[in-house]
Every structure is written in structure tokens, then in C-alpha cells.
């Protein structure tokens, strides 16, 4: 695997979790609110259809595709070429960076607008483009907030769910000149204005790809804001980054997967916008890009495919449902995991993508409560895979017993709200440092540094009283 951001610091998971839980309680509040809201919508959306049958079907389609991936990749390549698109192949992050920066340099590009793409995070594309002197604008509203802050996304679907309104108000007041009391509508309007200018001047639009349909050479993208539609429409060049596992055989499969993914991710029948790109504009009435490039990226995915058990994680459609369902993720948000793919899916994918040693101790950051597996729309057996990774880690001597015990205890407490509430209460009554000793995971570490003093009442108490 080449350079990139995935797994830069999985080993620091416990230290980061401790810092977030002890020093940034607003993260837990914001993440808990957002994930519980996603969860409610997902459950409602699953109940409206025969989601069990949908999930069985989706699992079977993906298993079929993965077993014939070479066939479907080459079929997609041929169709895309017939449609006038250029197809590139990158074995690792470095090659993908090189392909995109060379395209940009060839086009003398000065400005790039990007749609949300986990894959571009994975390969560290923004840094590579900026090193080449190209200005990069993240155009998804959440990603734009994070770019201004110099942070990375903490959730696959809601990249900035760890930020609350006040933090964005302060940021936009400083950077965009909006009022400190600006409401979300005002703040979004200010961002829209800046980003509209970026779209108007951009030379290249870069996106990910939710799916690639082999039969028609179609790159499919789901979103709610419309920034991806703009990024694939206004600049002269569109570059789509697609993991090699993103293939679907036929258009009829796409119809099912678009709906399945939207229901799992945001509880909608479909995202507000879906873009299906076949190739460059070729019709007099079409004002779209003159060049379309699709980059098929491996970057560890064929290693996952090779793995006896972990290959099942390649069915992942990046819906984020397992993150939303996970009581452990909810306590810290995604940054604690130190990898682009956080939460349960990251814990099963990273050991195969990066190597088990680099991904430690993520497979232990779970109570094995099973909520992730139940939420997953493509039936990835996440708890089973976590157990398998734990067994492999133990066999390889990668998991010191004390750390395993501390993490398991933390995860167990996180999965039982009453226990966690009690530990949270202890924090307000005893002071954070003593409370950290009461929380199983932080106990050993709290001796090293003092934690800030918390408010006299718990968030839940404040919430119930409807104040602050």
C-alpha cells in the first residue's frame, strides 16, 4: 500500500478516546444526537419495505460480483471507453495521486472542486493536489466546514456530525464574516455563495463513485446537497475515483442498490440527487464536461478479497448504518479510530486493508452487541469478523491482555447506557479525573494527566430540564 491517510494512527485509539471523552464532552453529545437521529430514520425506512429480502438480495448480488470482479471491471472499462470516458488503474494511493495530479497539470488546472469521497481521503488526494499548486475546494457543506478547520471527516455520511452549531457559528464568523448568532440557513447561504464562485471557476470536478454499472459503464453517485451534481456538470473535466469493489452487473441492480443504500444511510427512499455519469457530453444541448476520467483503485482491496473471512467486508456500500448503531462509536465519534474508515466497518476492514498490526486495537473496540451486524444492509457479519480478527491478533501476540480487558470493559459499558450514565454521573459529582478512573477504559490513563472539570449536571439532566 502506498502513502495515504488510512490507518495513520489506529494504535492511538485509546489515547484519543480518553481525550475526547474526558476533554471534549460536546463531541459525544453531538455524535450521539446525530447517530440516534440517523438510527430512527433508518429503522423507519427499513420497516416500510421487505428489508430482509432486500438485504439477502444485495448480499447475493455483491457475492456474485466479487467472485467475478475481473470480468465486471473489464466489462465496465469497455463500456466506459465506448462512451468516450478514460479509464485508469491504480494499484495504490501513490499511483492514484499521480494519475489525478498529472491530469490536473496537463489541463493547467488551478482549481478543483470536490464532492464528498472517502476514497479521496483514503489516498490523501487534497494534500497531493495542493503540493502541485492546485487549490482544492471541498463542496459538501460538512466537508467544507472541516476543510476550514483542517480536520478530516468523522463519519462516512455526516462528515461533521461531531461539530455543534456554536462551533460552526464561530468558524464562519471568523472566515466568512457571518454573524456569531447566524442560524444554519444564514450560514449555509454564506457557504453556498463562496462555493458557487468556486464551482464557476473550477477546472476539474473530482468525485467518488457509489457504484459502477458494468453493463452500461455508469458511475452512480448519491447525495442530498447537489454539490456532486454540480461537480460532475460544470467543470470541463470530471474525475471519478472508484474502489475496484464498487461494481454492479446491470442497471436493474443499480435500481435496487440506490434505494437500499439511501434507506440504510439516511432513511430516505432515495437521496435528493442521484447522478448517473456515462461519459463526456456529446449532445449539442448538453453543457457537461468535455472529459470524464474513471480511476479504478485497489489500495489493499485485493488483499481483502484474498482473505479467508474479511472478503465479506467488500460488500460494504459505505452507508454508515453500522456507525450509527454502534454504542462505542457514539461515545467518541470517528476521529478516535485514527483511520478514514471508523466504527465497526473500519474495525473489520482496516486489519485487511492495512495489516492487522497497523489496525490494532480496533477489533477490540466493540462490545460485540451485534447492533452493527443487524443494521448492515448487505449482511456483513461484522461481529463474527471482529471475533476472527481478535483470534488472529491473539495468535499473533498483538494484543496485550491488560489493554484487551480495558477496551472490552469500556465497550461493554458503552453498550449498556445505564452503566455509562452512572459513570457520566460520577464525573459530575466526583470531578473528571476521579470519574475517568471510574470509567474502565480511562482508568489506567487518568493518572497521567488532569482532565478539565465538568459541569455540575450531566448532559442528560440538562436536556431533561430543557436548559442550555
Amino acid at each position, binding site marked *: 500500500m502506498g502513502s495515504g491517510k488510512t490507518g495513520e494512527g489506529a494504535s492511538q485509539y485509546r489515547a484519543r478516546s480518553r481525550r475526547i471523552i474526558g476533554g471534549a464532552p460536546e463531541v459525544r453529545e453531538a455524535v450521539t444526537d446525530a447517530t440516534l437521529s440517523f438510527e430512527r430514520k433508518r429503522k423507519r425506512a427499513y420497516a416500510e419495505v421487505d428489508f430482509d429480502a432486500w438485504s439477502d*438480495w444485495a448480499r447475493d448480488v455483491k457475492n456474485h460480483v466479487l467472485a467475478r470482479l475481473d470480468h465486471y471491471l473489464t466489462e465496465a472499462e469497455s463500456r466506459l471507453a465506448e462512451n468516450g470516458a478514460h*479509464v485508469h488503474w491504480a494499484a495504490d494511493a501513490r499511483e492514484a495521486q499521480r494519475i489525478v495530479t498529472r491530469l490536473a497539470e496537463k489541463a493547467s488546472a488551478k482549481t478543483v472542486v470536490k464532492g464528498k469521497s472517502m476514497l479521496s481521503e483514503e489516498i490523501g488526494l487534497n494534500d497531493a493536489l495542493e503540493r502541485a499548486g492546485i487549490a482544492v475546494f471541498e463542496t459538501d457543506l460538512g466537508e467544507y*466546514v472541516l476543510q476550514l478547520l483542517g480536520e478530516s471527516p468523522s463519519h462516512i455520511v455526516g462528515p461533521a456530525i461531531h461539530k455543534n*452549531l456554536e462551533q460552526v457559528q464561530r468558524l464562519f464568523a471568523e472566515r466568512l464574516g457571518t454573524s456569531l448568532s447566524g442560524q444554519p440557513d444564514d450560514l449555509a447561504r454564506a457557504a453556498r455563495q463562496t462555493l458557487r464562485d468556486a464551482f464557476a471557476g473550477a477546472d476539474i470536478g473530482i468525485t467518488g463513485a457509489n457504484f459502477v454499472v458494468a453493463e452500461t459503464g455508469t458511475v452512480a453517485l448519491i447525495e442530498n446537497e447537489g454539490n456532486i451534481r454540480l461537480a460532475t*456538470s460544470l467543470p470541463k473535466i470530471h474525475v471519478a475515483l472508484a474502489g475496484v469493489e464498487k461494481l454492479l452487473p446491470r*442497471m436493474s441492480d443499480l435500481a435496487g442498490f440506490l434505494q437500499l443504500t439511501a434507506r440504510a444511510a439516511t432513511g430516505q427512499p432515495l437521496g435528493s440527487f*442521484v447522478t448517473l455519469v456515462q*461519459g463526456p457530453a456529446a449532445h449539442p*444541448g448538453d453543457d457537461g464536461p468535455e472529459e470524464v476520467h474513471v480511476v479504478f483503485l485497489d489500495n489493499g482491496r*485485493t488483499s481483502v478479497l484474498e482473505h479467508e473471512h474479511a472478503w465479506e467486508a467488500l460488500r460494504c456500500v459505505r452507508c454508515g448504518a453500522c456507525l450509527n448503531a454502534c454504542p462505542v462509536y457514539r461515545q467518541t465519534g470517528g476521529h478516535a479510530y485514527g483511520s478514514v474508515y471508523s466504527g465497526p466497518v473500519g474495525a473489520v476492514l482496516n486489519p485487511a486493508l492495512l495489516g492487522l498490526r497497523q489496525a490494532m486495537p480496533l477489533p477490540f473496540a466493540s462490545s460485540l452487541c451485534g447492533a452493527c451486524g443487524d443494521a448492515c444492509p448487505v449482511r456483513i457479519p461484522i461481529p463474527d469478523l471482529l471475533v476472527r480478527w481478535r483470534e488472529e491478533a491473539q495468535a499473533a501476540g498483538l494484543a496485550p491482555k491488560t489493554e484487551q480487558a480495558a477496551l472490552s470493559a469500556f465497550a461493554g459499558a458503552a453498550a449498556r447506557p445505564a452503566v455509562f450514565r452512572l459513570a457520566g454521573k460520577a464525573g459530575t459529582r466526583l470531578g473528571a479525573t476521579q470519574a475517568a478512573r471510574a470509567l474502565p477504559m480511562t482508568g489506567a490513563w487518568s493518572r497521567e494527566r488532569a482532565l478539565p472539570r465538568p459541569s455540575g449536571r450531566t448532559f442528560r439532566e440538562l436536556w431533561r430540564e430543557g436548559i442550555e
Partner: protein
Amino acid sequence: MRDGGSDSTATDRARILARIVQANARRDAPPHPGRLETPTPSDAAEVFAARFAASGGEVVVLDAGTRDSAGVARSPGERLGEFVAGLGLERPGVAIGACVPEELRPPGPYAPPETAGVGVCLAWAAVAETGSLLLESTGGRATQLLPPVLVAWVPRGRVFGRLGDALGELAPRLPAAVGLHSGPSKSADIGGTVVVGVHGPGRCIAVLEETASR
């Protein structure tokens, strides 16, 4: 076109495909399970209207045969013009998509998509099960995306029950790009509060002629 003539991407292609073949060597390929059968809505136009509205879209039904006070029949475009005039646009000017036929065009004043208050386009179809408009890129993407309000004609008889049926019919003749619009542009990225019109149109209006059901 394959890989833009670069040697390293050709090498990477061979490497990736070989690794896939090797990884799958010991596994049987399970068959494709066939199509996901979702229920077909009984009244597609009605279900489309309900789902589109539930996602924040607006649906207008223009009845056929409207006449002015002198008894002269007005074209659908003229009727749409009256409707657009009543929208209270934040700025004047109508941008017209390339494939909107003359009789469906509201009278001006016209403006380019960048400055228009409303974009008018002709959908290829609508889809009931997802509450979506299906827009072809050949109609002009800027018109579909840049004005704060989008008005899309849905041709008579072009409301499909299921997304798979619509995409299946479109598959053999796909344009360079297709946009499915299921309501206005939305984001909850700032403090979890939903705001509309972040990037794309903040109002999305589907105009059905009477008996548009398929």
C-alpha cells in the same frame, strides 16, 4: 479510451486483475440472484406525487383545456407562465432547458441559468416508488441545477411505478449523464438542522398534466 497511454496504469491494471483472479481461484462464483422485485404501485402518478411531496418537492397538476376570458385556448406554456409568475421568485428571469418544446415554454423574460430565478426543463420521466424526476443531461445541466427554483414538466404517461423499470427502459439509450431529483437540495451538516437550497435548487416543482399516469 484506456488509461490515457500511461505505462504504469497499464501495469497496475494487469496486476490488479491478476490479484483478483488469484484471490478468487479457490472460490466458486455464486449465481446472480436476478432482479429485486419491489411492489408496483397501483396508481403511479398518485404515489409519485405523495413521495415527491414527502421529500420536500412540490407537485402541480395543470388541467387540460383551460381557456382565457375570451374563450381562447391557452397553451401549456402560457399556463405555466401564469404559475411561474405567482411563485414570488427571489429574482426574475426564466432559464429554459434545451429539450423543452415550444408549446411548453412559459413566455419570458428569459435569463441564463446563472442569473435566472427559475429553471424550466422537461423530465424524461418520473418514478413513483422513489418520488423522483429523471432528467437527461441533454436538456442542459446548468438549467437543472443553478436557479434557486426548478420546474420540471413530466410528460403525460411518463410516471413509472418502479425505478428499475425506468432505468431499464433508459439503459439502451442513456445520455452522457442522468440526474434523479427527489426533492430540493438539503443538508443537515450544520448542527443537525435541515436547510434547503444549499447547492442545488431549494424548490423543486414537478408539473404533471392531467392523466400523466402510466
